[in-house]
């Protein structure tokens, strides 16, 4: 039996007709009260996983239990205890924020005498009290996302699914949403399953991160654990002249594994080496660089180490595949 408020997924597969496996045999477990970050580029299988876990899509194979209930056999019970904000904040532009909350509260079975106070509480909580009686067509992207979050919370769910909640938001709105999600976990002990393509978001918010690529989980652990797995820092050099790039790459390769030569020239240092070793060698060899920077491993480094691509590169690749399919 899955622990109350937790999520357990075992060998989950979802295939689309005439398409590839969007989700290809993933296993994961989310503990009650945990924020689990599901990180991956566009087209990696994040949203499909959310659709299966929230009962909107049946899996092709495997099992998933949410809050102790099987997502296939006990769909209504799963839906009663989850709140969901999907990638597209599907709102009715002709309704006001308050209309939406009233409708959602009614459909979620909130008691009649509780609907109004709950709506007021949520409008204040997400900072939309002043805009509550305005039609959603006049809301900014950030306001729509906040209303979407309020709608997901209207029936006080124990488990919250947020599918790329900050995509397209300005930094201020993004930070506000992060604070709200942290507060939900801290004060209400809500379990949060959050998909994102932003490294920083996963790093800041998530207790644990699962990295998904091409339908498979390629790494899982706390952000600190994952970065520690990579262990060694990297050094990034910016050449003064573009034509020096190959020479600097050859020079830096003496200190470790060459990572990238397209933007800056970077190298993952071998054990026992530090920035000072490189600075001395730069001086001794007269290598002309504008800047040298030592960076601790990031989740992008984890993604690169596990998949051989950067997260940004994988996203571009996925978009190219989609474009190719579109053109037939």
């Amino acid at each position, binding site marked *: 039996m899955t622990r109350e408020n937790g999520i357990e997924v075992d060998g989950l597969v979802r295939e689309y007709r005439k398409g590839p496996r969007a989700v290809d045999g993933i296993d994961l477990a989310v503990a009650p009260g945990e924020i689990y970050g599901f990180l991956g580029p566009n087209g990696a299988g994040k949203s499909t996983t959310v659709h299966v876990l*929230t*009962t*909107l*899509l*049946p899996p092709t194979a495997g099992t998933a239990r949410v809050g102790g209930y099987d*997502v*296939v*056999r006990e*769909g*209504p019970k799963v*839906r*009663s205890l*989850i709140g*969901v904000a*999907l990638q*597209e904040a*599907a*709102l*009715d532009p*002709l*309704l006001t924020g308050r*209309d939406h909350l*009233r*409708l*959602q509260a*009614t*459909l*979620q*079975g909130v008691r009649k005498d509780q609907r109004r106070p709950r709506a007021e509480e949520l409008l204040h909580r997400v900072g939309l009290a002043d805009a509550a009686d305005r*039609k959603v067509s006049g809301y900014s992207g950030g306001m729509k996302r906040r209303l979407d979050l309020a*709608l997901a919370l209207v029936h006080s769910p124990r488990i919250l699914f947020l599918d790329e909640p900050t995509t397209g938001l300005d930094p201020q709105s993004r930070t506000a949403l992060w604070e709200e999600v942290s507060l939900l976990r801290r004060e209400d002990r809500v379990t949060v399953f959050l998909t994102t393509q932003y490294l920083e978001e996963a790093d800041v918010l998530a207790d644990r991160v699962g990295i998904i690529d091409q339908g498979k989980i390629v790494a899982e652990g706390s952000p600190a654990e994952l970065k520690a797995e990579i262990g060694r820092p990297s050094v990034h050099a910016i050449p003064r002249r573009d034509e020096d790039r190959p020479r600097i790459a050859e020079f830096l390769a003496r200190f470790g594994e060459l990572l990238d030569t397209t933007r800056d020239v970077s190298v993952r240092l071998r054990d026992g080496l530090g920035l000072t070793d490189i600075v001395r060698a730069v001086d001794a060899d007269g290598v002309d660089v504008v800047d040298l920077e030592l960076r601790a491993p990031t989740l992008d480094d984890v993604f690169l180490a596990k998949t051989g691509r950067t997260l940004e590169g994988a996203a571009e690749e996925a978009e190219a595949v989609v474009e190719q399919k579109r053109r037939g």
Partner: protein
Amino acid sequence: MSSSLTQVGAIARRSVVRTARQPASIIPPLVFPVALMAVNAGGLRSSTDLPGFPTESFLAFALAVPFIQGALFSTMNAGTDLARDIQTGFVNRLSLTALRDWALLTGQLAGIVVLGVVQVLFYIAVGLIAGVTFASGPLGIAVLVVYGAIVSLSFGALGAWLAFRTGSGETIQALFPVLFVFLFISSMNTPRDLIGVDWFRIAATLNPVSYMIECVRSLIITGWDPQALALGFGFVIALGVISLALASRALRTRMTRT
């Protein structure tokens, strides 16, 4: 009130509110049929001189047409609204609540019926103001309102089926002229027995829309005609039953939740 009825009420309220906030959804079903009726009543007035024409007032004869024409507008509006909900993911949002499938359909149709009744009351008011005498009296007017509600329900269910089946507002708008063909090849402008062109008379006789118009027309100009009422109610109820069955089936496929 049970939770199912509460859900139906909430969806119906949304349907009415969003229509009320779109003048483009309210004005055409009210104005266009009445404008067309006024044009026809002016241009075709001499039809009443034909031997066997059932009334001396072409306006009274033509007043039946807006009832069906308005319902066709409702079909398109209901369909495009629902299709938009599917396209934007709003149906997914509803799928994630405790909303029952049938409550979504019923609520949506309840909203359409409310608007349909408003339309019918408007057409009746226009008729009374223009001096039309309703041969079936106040009770006949009440039956017209009920008939208008059933027509809205049946045509609304047809629009809902098209929306759930295609999921595309553009497709529904493209189908709108096809529905209008049924109106134009009916007895909307001439009684069937006075149509001189054979193929047109046969087409109008085979077209159920003719009987829906004649049902309304009988209450306005004839009085109580059991055959016209039976055929009119029979065809519109049959359309409603078939459309509702198709819409329910398409809805189950569309709301793919486990």
